[in-house]
């Protein structure tokens, strides 16, 4: 029985890892076709942060709904951060490039009241008690999810000044798969912490293991030295996003920033 259970766990683990490796293999596949159709421009390291507007997922058994209790409630927040490497390639001419990459995404979402630092709390219903209504005082609920994926960016650079500064517009598609996710509850009374797993199991809210989005950004590319270029981008609200990437709330990107360092492969004067 134990052997069978271990074997099942091993198969599931390998299966999950296989899904993640699909992204890695796909990334290197994209790199391999460049020799035939594209000309490699540079390798870059990038960091991206997107701020998100949120709406509480009402399937969580929280007593006070956002907006229904004036002046004391309403802080749901989420951020999407990513870190990755990418290789930029010219397509057709020097104004158009395509950049496949591989990125690690971190999505954090949390619910807390605006007086959290002063001990503010709200009420989470614990349906494990059949004797009546059972509410637990909670200071915050936080969910952290990590994804591994492949962003692909199409960039158009209409203006270049003195071979040093250029302005561009980008369209980026992200496609990622979840590698871990954890939800934690901070209780008002530390003694209640022992109920955390039971409550989360009863609520049983799952988030979407697939993450995808399509968004545009505007930015500039600056030459710092022959070997290093810097890119700064203003991320615009996304066009498309997969739903339920946070079980706590629905997300809508309202903007963000993208920072990347580029290492050109052919040195220009």
């Amino acid at each position, binding site marked *: 029985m134990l052997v069978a259970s271990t074997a099942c766990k091993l198969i599931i683990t390998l299966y999950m890892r296989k899904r993640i490796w699909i992204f890695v293999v796909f990334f290197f596949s994209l790199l391999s076709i460049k020799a035939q159709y594209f000309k490699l421009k540079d390798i870059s390291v990038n960091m991206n942060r997107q701020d998100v507007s949120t709406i509480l997922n009402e399937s969580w058994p929280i*007593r*006070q*709904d956002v907006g*229904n*209790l004036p002046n*004391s409630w309403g802080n749901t927040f989420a951020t999407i951060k990513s870190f990755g490497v990418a290789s930029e390639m010219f397509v057709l001419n020097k104004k158009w490039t395509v950049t496949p990459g591989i990125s690690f995404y971190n999505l954090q979402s949390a619910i807390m009241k605006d007086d959290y630092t002063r001990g503010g*709390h*709200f*009420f989470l*219903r614990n349906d494990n*008690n059949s*004797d*009546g*209504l*059972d*509410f*637990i*005082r909670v200071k915050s609920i936080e969910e952290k999810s990590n994804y591994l994926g492949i962003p692909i960016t199409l960039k158009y650079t209409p203006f270049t000044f003195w071979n040093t500064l250029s302005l561009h517009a980008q369209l980026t598609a992200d496609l990622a798969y979840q590698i871990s996710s954890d939800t934690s509850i901070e209780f*008002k*009374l530390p003694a*209640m912490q022992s109920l955390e797993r039971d409550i989360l199991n009863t609520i049983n809210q799952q988030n979407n293991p697939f993450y995808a989005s399509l968004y545009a950004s505007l930015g500039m590319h600056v030459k710092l030295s022959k070997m290093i270029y810097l890119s700064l981008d203003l991320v615009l609200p996304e066009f498309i996003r997969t739903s339920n990437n946070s079980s706590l709330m629905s997300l809508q990107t309202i903007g963000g920033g993208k920072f990347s360092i580029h290492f050109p492969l052919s040195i220009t004067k």
Partner: protein
Amino acid sequence: MKLNIKRLKALLAIAVILAASSCTYYNDFEFSRSVFTEDYDFPGLPIYSELGYNTFGMYIDRKVFSSTDSAYPIKIIVNGDTCKFSLNGWYSGGPATLGIALIGFSPEDYPDLIQLNDSIINLDDPNCILTFTQNGHTTVAKKLDVIQGSLHIKQAKKLYIDTEFTRVILSGTIALKTFLFDDPVAFTNGRFDLGVGYENFYNY
């Protein structure tokens, strides 16, 4: 010495039993506030709920009589053999109270309200006295002549906060036809979801 320890254990056991059986005086301020979510189908009234949102609402003909966030929406006063439910809200531009007094029902303390679970009270029963008080430009406190009506307490259940029993939640519906200022009126679409605890239950 052994005897003393035994006595101490006995006293401790008695103290634990008393603590477990007694009513708590704990009142979480946040929980005593109202969570008013408007019913889209019945404008001005709160949604029907059974979660201790501390709201009630009904139409008196076409005007809204509903709870506010400034006063306890319910106070229960037991005096002798009579238990009076006072629903405090806002009606026609001023505070108003609907009183429902039940003769022959006298709970000792708020945990005893559990016995009202899934009960229907006929409001035209002689043992049920209704009053309506309006404090706007004028004050009228009058016993109502009930044509017909019923109070359905669908749920009366214990409420725990951090696993500690703190109050009883009364949820249900109310409908009533009576005379107000000598005019026949109907109290319709009435719903309530009210918490009763140490702070709004009186027995004297």
